[in-house]
Every structure is written in structure tokens, then in C-alpha cells.
């Protein structure tokens, strides 16, 4: 049980983590993240890095879709832009890793803003269609702009290197990818404490009255697209260093659906939702793989049906959450916490 808190100043009331208990939990969480690489094996570090990359990209999509209300099915293609930016920079110029990742973010932000241009005129399904079209165009460019992307054979990426340390294995990359994820998630939380984040939500809830309050719709919609794509670009850049080869097949359309599913399953329009959704959706295929391993003695075809089953599971999760828990895992988490705060007085 926790007793209600009384805030002394407006500044304290506006803080991100406003209670002592929250700060203690947060400190424990960070400690856990630091100790994690020393306690688990390569496989779980691989999963952790992948989760962190997905957290970045999902948080980006959440800014656009969950907070601004603009549905996009282009997140994977945007990650592709980031990944190719890193691959090309490495291959051609050999510029430093951190710089490459940032450039990947900015290049992708530019592409995202361009794709967002129709968003002033079209909404909902039509905007989703426009982003699908954009992602097929990007895919076509990845596959056919041979002089830059090397077509279907793709580009190999050398290991990341930061401050003279080479990072090739998950145990090393963990220290690059996880900090990026933390900083970007915190930045996104900050955003929604300010006028910019509020403007995004206002556009989602009722864009006509947002305009009367002095929010220029086009500028903010493009800003949301650009920011969301920046997140995708950074995630894609990290992805390139993680998998070390970038091909047109690396970022298939189903990967965009994966991110949309993560936003919906986690909870649209909450930062926590983006994190929970990314973790959950990354673990689902792993659990399925485990299940296949268990089933293969009795069901020899299990491996073959893994891929279609995975797609079906993604789809079922989207529909299931939309119908039964539209606020996603974040809401379930909130209810659980509430239960424990009030326990044993009220359940």
C-alpha cells in the first residue's frame, strides 16, 4: 500500500518520476540493466539488443500513431533508410559509428517528413495507404539503386567502434544499443511534458480545435513524422551494426506490421506502452520458436509452418487487443499497480 502524496511545488508536481518509490524502482531497474550482461548468456544478450532496437523504433511509431493519431505502416522501411545510411557511410567514408547513427536518424527524419506531406489532406485509412505506398517505393529503391545499395546482394557492415572499442558481439553492442534506447525513451517522455507533445495529442483527439488554439496542423504533423522517422532511422542504424549486413529483404512489410502491433499491444499513446509492446512482440516469436522445438518430434512440419504461424499470431494479437484491451499492456500494468497500492483496503 502507498499513501497519497502531496506535492510542495509545481516543479515537483511536473516531475517525470514524482514519488520516492518510483525513483527507487527506477534505480533498481537501471542497476538490473547494468548487471544483466554479467549474468546471462549470449542468447539473452542477443534478445536484449534486439528488444532495445525495437523499443526505439516502437517508441518512434508510438509518437506518430499513438500520440499524434497518424497511422503509419512505413516504420520498417524507415528503419531500412537508417540501416542503408549507416551501411553506405561505413562503406564509402568510414566515418565514426556514433556520427553515422545520428546521420541515419536525420536522413530518415527527412524522408519521413516527405512521406508525411499528404497527412494534411488525408487521414486514417488513406494515410495508412500512403505510407504503404511509400514503403514499397523505398523497398524498390533499396533493391534497384545498384550503384549505392548494391541491389539484392546488399551491403556488409563492419563492426561498430566507439572510443576505440570494437563492438561486434551482443555483449559489446549491448553497451551501445541499450544506452541509445534509454536516452531516446527518456527524450520521448520529456516531449509529452511540454507544449509540443500536448500539441501532438491535441491533433490526435480533435484536430479542428487544435487549430483554434494556435497549433498549425501541417507543421506539427510533419514534425511528428520527422521525429518518429528519426527514431526509426536510429533504430535502423543500430540494426545495421547489430546484423552487419543490410539487404532489401531485411526490412519486409510484415516488419512494419510488427511495429504497429507492438504499439497497439503495448498501449497507444503511452511511453510505457511502447516499451512493453516492443518487449512482448520481440519475445512472441522466440516463444513460438521454443514451442516449435518442443513440438518437432511429434509434428515434423512444425519448422515449416513457423513463419506463417508467426504472422497469424501478430494479426490475432492486434485484433485481440483492439477488441479486449484497447489501451494495451500499459493499462493492464496500471491496473495491477493500482491493485497493489490500494491493497488491502480496496481491491
Amino acid at each position, binding site marked *: 500500500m502507498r499513501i497519497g502524496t502531496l506535492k510542495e511545488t*509545481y*516543479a515537483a*508536481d*511536473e516531475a*517525470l518520476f514524482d514519488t520516492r518509490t518510483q525513483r527507487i524502482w527506477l534505480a533498481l531497474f537501471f542497476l538490473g540493466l547494468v548487471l544483466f550482461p554479467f549474468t546471462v548468456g549470449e542468447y539473452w544478450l542477443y534478445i536484449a539488443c534486439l528488444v532495445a532496437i525495437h523499443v526505439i523504433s516502437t517508441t518512434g511509431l508510438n509518437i506518430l500513431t499513438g500520440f499524434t493519431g497518424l497511422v503509419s505502416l512505413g516504420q520498417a522501411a524507415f528503419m531500412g533508410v537508417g540501416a542503408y545510411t549507416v551501411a553506405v557511410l561505413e562503406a564509402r567514408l568510414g566515418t565514426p559509428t556514433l556520427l553515422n547513427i545520428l546521420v541515419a536518424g536525420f536522413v530518415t527524419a527527412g524522408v519521413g517528413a516527405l512521406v508525411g506531406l499528404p497527412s494534411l489532406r488525408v487521414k486514417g485509412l488513406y494515410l495508412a495507404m500512403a505510407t504503404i505506398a511509400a514503403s514499397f517505393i523505398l523497398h524498390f529503391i533499396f533493391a534497384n539503386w545498384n550503384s549505392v545499395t548494391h541491389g539484392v546482394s546488399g551491403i556488409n557492415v563492419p563492426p561498430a567502434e566507439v572510443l576505440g572499442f570494437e563492438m561486434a558481439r551482443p555483449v559489446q553492442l549491448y553497451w551501445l544499443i541499450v544506452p541509445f534506447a534509454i536516452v531516446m525513451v527518456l*527524450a*520521448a517522455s*520529456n*516531449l509529452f*511534458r*511540454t*507544449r*509540443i*507533445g*500536448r*500539441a501532438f*495529442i*491535441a491533433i*490526435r*483527439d*480533435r484536430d*479542428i*480545435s*487544435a*487549430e*483554434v*488554439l*494556435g*497549433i*498549425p496542423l501541417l507543421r506539427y504533423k510533419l*514534425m511528428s513524422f520527422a*521525429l518518429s522517422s528519426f527514431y526509426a532511422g536510429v533504430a535502423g542504424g543500430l540494426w545495421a551494426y547489430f546484423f552487419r549486413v543490410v539487404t532489401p529483404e531485411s526490412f519486409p512489410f510484415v516488419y512494419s506490421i510488427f511495429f504497429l502491433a507492438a504499439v497497439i499491444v503495448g498501449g497507444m*499513446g503511452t511511453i510505457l506502452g511502447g516499451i512493453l509492446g516492443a518487449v512482448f512482440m520481440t519475445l512472441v516469436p522466440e516463444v513460438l520458436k521454443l514451442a516449435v522445438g518442443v513440438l518437432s518430434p511429434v509434428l515434423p512440419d512444425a519448422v515449416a509452418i513457423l513463419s506463417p504461424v508467426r504472422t497469424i499470431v501478430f494479426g490475432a494479437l492486434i485484433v485481440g487487443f483492439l477488441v479486449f484491451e484497447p489501451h494495451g499492456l500499459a493499462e493492464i500494468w496500471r491496473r495491477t499497480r493500482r491493485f497493489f497500492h490500494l491493497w488491502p483496503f480496496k481491491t
Partner: protein
Amino acid sequence: MSIHAPLLCVDAVSLSFGGLKALSGVTFDVAPNSITAVIGPNGAGKTSLFNCISGFYTPQQGAIRFAGEDITKTHPPHRAKIGLARTFQNIALFRGMTVLDNIKLGRHAHMRTNLLDALLYWGRAQKEEVELRAEIEERVIDFLEINHIRNQPVASLAYGLRKRVELARALAMRPKILMLDEPVAGMNREETEDMARFILDVKEEWGVTILMVEHDMGMVMDISDHVVVLNFGTVIARGLPGEVTQNPDVIRAYLGGTDVEALQRRIQGREAA
């Protein structure tokens, strides 16, 4: 601009939707620091007039001037910035946000935090947010007596309170002119009296000019300085509240007959129209 110059001029504004003339040649002025009421039967064009003034519709003819500037063709965000605020007939709050966040949005146009400030929440962003919070708490929330609901999501509020929150958000814009579309429609007597008191206080304490559409004739008579009567998109009368209600055209438009007594009974009896 001299003190006598009108703050808002609506000059021969005409608006049509396809063949339907919603407004034709509407002309009137709003004097600074006054309360002007626009009345008229349903479908008279009152909301359309508001939409022209706040920039959702561009009139086909005529001009709208605010504080000396021709704003006929400017976008709504610009109008917000130069001091026009409004509320909506069917409440346009952001349902996914708390009362406090809704009100904070009112200050949007006057804040400077940019995207980078916002992501870092450092320096300017933090300073601005804390100042904003203090200002809203002290000037708006206390004033409108909504302290008890500040952290509630607006979706959970009763109708009368939502109207009050919408007024709070408009006040947070620090407007020069506040446009209220049917501020007491659907409210009970007590809520109506509270709202009338707030509107008068806004005018007197904040020096904000008010332009409102209202059906409640009792309230119109009580608090407005000037009344404009619309019927079928044209101004059929304007003047002091007392004068306008004597006007036979107005009585006909309102009651569909010539029953002067009935209208006066309504006004004196303070019945909601």
C-alpha cells in the same frame, strides 16, 4: 487605435454553402471591453458567423478586421496568436487529456519551447512549463473554481463542468476577444448563473471583450451591452438589449408571430428559450 475604435469589425460578410446562403451582408462592430450577444433562431447562421471569425470558413464576400488588422483570409492559428479565443457549441475538449493539460494547451501559441528543448526538458522547456503551471493554477483554475478536478480526464466530467473547462482553456490563451458559442446551453439554473458571473468577471477583471451566441434570453438581457439579431443569415436588428426586444421584426423572427407580450413575459420570467 483609439479607445473608441471597435476591436472587431464584421463588414458585409457573406457565406454560402453551395446554393444555401448562410450569411448575407452581415455587418456589425464589437466595442472593446463590452459584451456583445448574437441571438437568432436555430439555423440563423450564428455558428457559421463564428466560424468565419475564427477562420474555419472563408466568407465569399466581405471582410473581418480585428484590432485594425484584416484577418479575413488568415489561418486559425494566426488568429489565436493575435488574441482571438473561442469555445464551441458542442464542446471541443481533448478527451484523452486531463483538465490541466487541456487548459495548458490554451497557452500553446504564446510559448517558445522548440522540439529540441522539449526532448531534453532542460532550460527553457522546464522554466516555461513551471511558469505556465503556476500561472494557470493561480489565474485560471482558482478563478473558475475547478481546483478539485484538475487532474481528472475530461471525459469523466459532467456537462456543466466541461463547459467551464473549455472556458478555462480559452482564458489560458490570454485572449483580447473571447467568443462563446452558447455558453449556457443545456445548463441548469445554478450553473447558468455561475457562468454568467464568470463571463462578467472576465470582462471586468481581465478586460477581455466578449462576443457570445446565446439562446437564454434572460442571460442575454442581464449581461450584454449590445445585441445583434440574426435571422436567415441577415442582421435584422442591433442595439441595446432593451431596444432590440421591442423590435417587431425580432419578435416575429423569434416567435414566428407577433406576440409581443409572450416575448416580454419570457424575458421577464427569465425562462430559458
